[in-house]
């Protein structure tokens, strides 16, 4: 009895001391967190600043030691030179054409296929779904050479077709992402539409797709980004420099002996810019899309 009383008396004091200790500990922890975050942010931002800085430096300033982040003299000439040294405008147009058609193909086919996998119970569904997942692990190099032979037999080398047409057959990654999303849509909606006499395609087109706009935007953004960034396939298929996409065209500034640093960095800025803009416009779709596929892996 007395022990308990004594304990009860001691407790508040101990608790208060403990609480102060925890508070101080929490404070230190937060300070450390912010110091780390700010240091790491500086490290991650730094290459961007370097990129922009170099793109604005006149030629004689690009190669000085010690290097300066900012140019002494701001020079936008590099941005003009980008378009005169090579046919950068043409590369831009090419990249836009390829990306838009690739996105169109990916979205149309992947949504359709994903709906089949998500909602239509057909014989063999699980089997094909396992195959689909399996293809995500297949290195594309295994099929790259025969596919190249097919496209070259069709006379498609040096055209955009090998970069666009395969997208119309759907991409395993996006089919998987969309299937996960479709599965979260309540089934009752489809059932009542079915009772109203709506066809399966009608349900997909008029009910599922409108409800899936965020997922579709995610897929469109990611597929745009991947096409825009793709290097290996344009390298294999495009050999006439009027057909180059940006990823190939930008390499023109890096000759084997002579590198034009300023224009090269200005060109890089111009290649990155549309992606950054798209990111800020569709930020939440980017983050959500990546997170949902990853989490369910």
């Amino acid at each position, binding site marked *: 009895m007395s022990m308990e009383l004594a304990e009860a008396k001691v407790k508040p004091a101990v608790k208060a001391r403990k609480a102060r200790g925890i508070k101080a500990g929490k404070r230190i922890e*937060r300070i450390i967190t912010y110091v780390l*975050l700010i240091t*790491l*942010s500086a490290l*991650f931002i730094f*290459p*961007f600043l*370097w*990129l922009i800085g170099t793109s604005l430096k006149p030629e004689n300033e*690009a*190669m*000085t*030691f*010690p*290097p300066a982040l900012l140019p002494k003299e701001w020079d936008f000439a590099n941005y003009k030179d980008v378009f005169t040294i090579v046919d950068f405008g043409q590369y831009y147009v090419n990249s836009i054409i390829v990306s838009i058609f690739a996105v169109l193909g990916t979205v149309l*086919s992947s949504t*359709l*296929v994903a709906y089949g*996998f998500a909602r*239509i119970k*057909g*014989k*063999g569904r699980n089997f094909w779904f396992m*195959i*689909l997942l399996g*293809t995500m*692990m*297949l*290195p594309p*190099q*295994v*099929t*790259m*050479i*025969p*596919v*190249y*032979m*097919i496209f070259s037999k069709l006379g498609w080398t040096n055209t955009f077709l090998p970069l666009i047409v*395969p997208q119309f*057959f759907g991409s395993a990654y996006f089919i998987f992402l969309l299937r996960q999303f479709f599965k979260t849509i309540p089934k009752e909606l489809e059932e009542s539409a079915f009772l109203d006499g709506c066809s*399966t395609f009608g349900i997909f087109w008029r009910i599922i797709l409108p409800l899936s706009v965020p997922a579709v935007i995610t897929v469109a953004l990611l597929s745009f980004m991947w096409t825009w960034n793709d*290097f290996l396939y344009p390298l294999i298929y495009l050999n006439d420099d009027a057909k180059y996409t*940006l990823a190939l065209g930008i390499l023109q500034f*890096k000759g084997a002996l002579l590198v034009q640093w300023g224009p*090269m*960095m200005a060109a*890089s800025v111009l*290649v990155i810019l549309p*992606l*950054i803009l798209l*990111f800020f416009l569709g*930020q939440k779709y*980017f*983050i959500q899309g*990546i997170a949902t596929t*990853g*989490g*369910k*892996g």
Partner: protein
Amino acid sequence: MNKSRTFQFYMFILPWLIGFLALTAGPMLYSLYMSFTDYSGLGVPNWVGFENYQKIFSSDPLFWQSLWNTIFYTVFGVPLGLIVGYLLAVLLNANVRFMGVFRTIFYLPSLVPTVASSLLWIIIFQPDFGIANAVLSFFHLPTSNWLLSEQMVKPALIIMSLWGAGGGMVIYLAGLQSVPASLYEAAELDGAGKFRKFWNVTVPMTSNVIFFNLIMGLIGSFQIFTQAYVVSSGNGGPNYKSLFYVFYLYQDAFKFFKMGYASALAWILFIIILIFTAIQFKVFGSKVYYEHDE
């Protein structure tokens, strides 16, 4: 499962099914066949049996060099990328202010096209006027030739890859945010400190995302090509130290037109990736936590 549903199912997946048969399954079989021929891109393939495979394993130093380069890059790059991405996510998950700003800063580099980021890092690593050496010499540390050095070209490429670690961070962050707060509370009641909570709650509860990133990171890492192609101007130098596996395969197929030989290389790559993936499932698979859905 009635017949008409089955028919509908196949109508919906038809685009993918055609693509799978024509652009994946068919080419896979054909590439397996080609790996036993001397096909050069022109004329007809001649059957040569196991000759390509024999040559690859017994008398092709560039195969071993490129395989070693790739394994080095993977063994150091993948775990480092994983740790950096996870660390960033854990920091962001600590209820910090301006979380959105920090997240954007860490994520943006992973958006930069590989060609553009490689060109940028060429300037940063430039031996004479690059900022990397300027910083090192400021602190009186030894400088390096980086991308032009046989020893440093792979570590330099790994540093470049870490700049893009924010892509993985986004996935970890989603995983971290889905850990129920009740688990932390229960751990606190049991007297668990900061690190115990991290090791015994956070890490196990996010093991599925870690595992996913590990598998995908490894598959991606084995296919490294663009960075190395850009920084070495397409030759895999210095002295083949940046000639990675897919880079070598590309050269054989599309520069030297050894299509049969390159097909054999592709199949060996496929089998190596399968083995590595199986090992990961064996070692970590049983330790991964999955939340029950459906």
